[in-house]
């Protein structure tokens, strides 16, 4: 193309360019000096034509991010390649920055020498932020290896692939990103447009769940559980989907579970005895491991709630040995009962146990203890009945 032709065409376009307000479209001379400054450029950056025309392009870029030498380098690349894309920060007049996506195109004279450049730039800060957020989420999802969590765009094209997806479907990211999700469907489902219908359902309902056959790379099928959730932009438009899937092939039996639960209920029925209105006794018999102790605590506290018991007696005379864990557990039970508003009394502590507890340095706090069940009962009755106000206050304190 002749130089004059290019120039006049550009001049003719300049008025039109002036009406474009969301792009910055400027002409540069071969050294990168700004020649034109249409209103779009003004709008985007806040600079006026007086401030920019005749200045080097580098004035539009923060020098710490994009030094002037780099810009000259970019101009050379554009000259070589014919068209060059730059994504970087640009500065505004007020000192703020925006993430700009710019395309530099060289203008050639008739002797093939460079007579200048056109720079078309756009503010893509928002898109970039979304992209970064997406990427950081994808990084988190990368840590997940036991199920597939992938992102699709609004057409159903795979945009991200995690290790779980790789394990499940055997494909690598390179093999699937950019391809339509229907590649994992059976021939029949593909033909019937199942993937599209699923996405439409997810967009409508906010979420779609299903189970079905899917195909691995080696052609084998597996039964998969799938959930599809739409991703929406600020305006509520669906911009893509997150798909979470897992292999259901080895789902476990349920009857077994029910049986085990039944056994457990039997074991849980350690007696809690109501000896007096508002007084409960929990006689603990046999060895206590942490699991059993936890279950005892649970049923005792439930019972306190039901009976609104003010005092409980934990009788441990039937427990052969109490180690640190169990002692600690007993004290936690006492504290939990206190939080509910109930006073606990320990009874039947043997000398060995007392020594053990104290030697272990366990904080005894406000633990009340009596060495026989009878003494414990007497104290309990005083607390709920005829006890003096002082005794009651102390009992709760």
């Amino acid at each position, binding site marked *: 193309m002749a130089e004059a032709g290019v120039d006049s065409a550009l001049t003719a376009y300049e008025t039109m360019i002036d009406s474009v307000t969301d792009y910055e479209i400027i002409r540069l001379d071969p050294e990168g000096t700004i020649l034109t400054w249409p209103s779009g450029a003004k709008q985007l950056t806040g600079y006026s034509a007086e401030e920019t025309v005749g200045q080097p392009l580098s004035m539009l870029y923060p020098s710490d991010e994009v030094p002037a030498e780099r810009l000259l380098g970019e101009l050379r690349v554009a000259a070589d390649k014919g068209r060059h894309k730059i994504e970087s920060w640009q500065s505004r007049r007020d000192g703020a920055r925006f993430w700009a996506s710019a395309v530099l195109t060289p203008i050639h004279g008739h002797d093939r020498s460079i007579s200048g450049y056109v720079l078309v730039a756009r503010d893509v800060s928002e898109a970039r932020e979304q992209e970064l957020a997406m990427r950081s989420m994808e990084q988190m999802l990368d840590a997940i290896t036991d199920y597939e969590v992938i992102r699709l765009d609004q057409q159903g094209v795979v945009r991200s692939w995690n290790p779980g997806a790789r394990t499940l479907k055997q494909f690598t990211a390179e093999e699937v990103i950019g391809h339509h999700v229907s590649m994992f469907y059976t021939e029949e489902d593909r033909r019937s447009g199942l993937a599209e219908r699923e996405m439409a359902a997810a967009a409508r309902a906010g979420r779609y*769940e299903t189970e079905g056959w899917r195909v691995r790379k080696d052609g084998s099928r597996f039964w998969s559980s799938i959930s599809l959730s739409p991703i929406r932009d600020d305006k509520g438009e669906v911009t893509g989907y997150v798909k979470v899937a897992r292999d259901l092939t080895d789902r476990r039996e349920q009857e077994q579970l029910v049986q*085990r639960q039944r056994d457990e209920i039997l074991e849980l029925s350690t007696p809690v005895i109501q000896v007096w209105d508002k007084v409960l006794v929990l006689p603990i018999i046999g060895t206590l491991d942490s699991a059993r102790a936890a279950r005892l605590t649970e049923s005792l506290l439930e019972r306190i709630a039901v009976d609104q018991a003010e005092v409980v007696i934990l009788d441990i005379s039937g427990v052969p040995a109490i180690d640190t864990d169990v002692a600690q557990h007993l004290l936690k039970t006492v504290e939990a009962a206190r939080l509910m508003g109930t006073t606990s009394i320990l009874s039947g502590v043997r000398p060995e146990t007392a020594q053990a507890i104290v030697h272990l340095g366990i904080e005894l706090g406000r633990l009340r203890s009596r060495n026989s069940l009878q003494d414990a009962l007497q104290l309990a009755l005083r607390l709920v009945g005829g006890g003096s106000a002082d005794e009651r206050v102390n009992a709760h304190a």
Partner: protein
Amino acid sequence: MTPLATAAEPRAPGEAPTLVQITGEADLLRVRSTLRAQAQVAGLGLTAATKLVTAGSELARNIVRYATHGQGVVLVETAEEGSRRGVRARFSDDGPGIVDLGAAMTDGYSSGGSMGLGLPGSRRLMDEFEIDSVPGRGTTIVICQWNR
């Protein structure tokens, strides 16, 4: 970032997990209700469920407080092992991570002037607790509570 549409419907065993995105304090309610619904599906008792929901609340609040922009994700699913069931939840963020894990797991250690009970307390409440944190990269915590 635009919110993912997520529902708090519980997931049956073997089903894909529910994803709850955390972007602020208001999401703690969703984390708690999702965990509670899931606890029901897994047949957790009231105490086990309460412990799970409480630990989840602690970990989600840590994300709001300490992760970058208070953002992270929670994945909740039904776990199965032999014939027992449970709820497994994974809390991930790509925030600053924890430099001294040993300290952070100790009662009373807090960089935020708080009680420093969230992490060690959650570990005590849960049947399983795994923490993986890389300074500068983020933190992932997986907890699991079984029905027996």
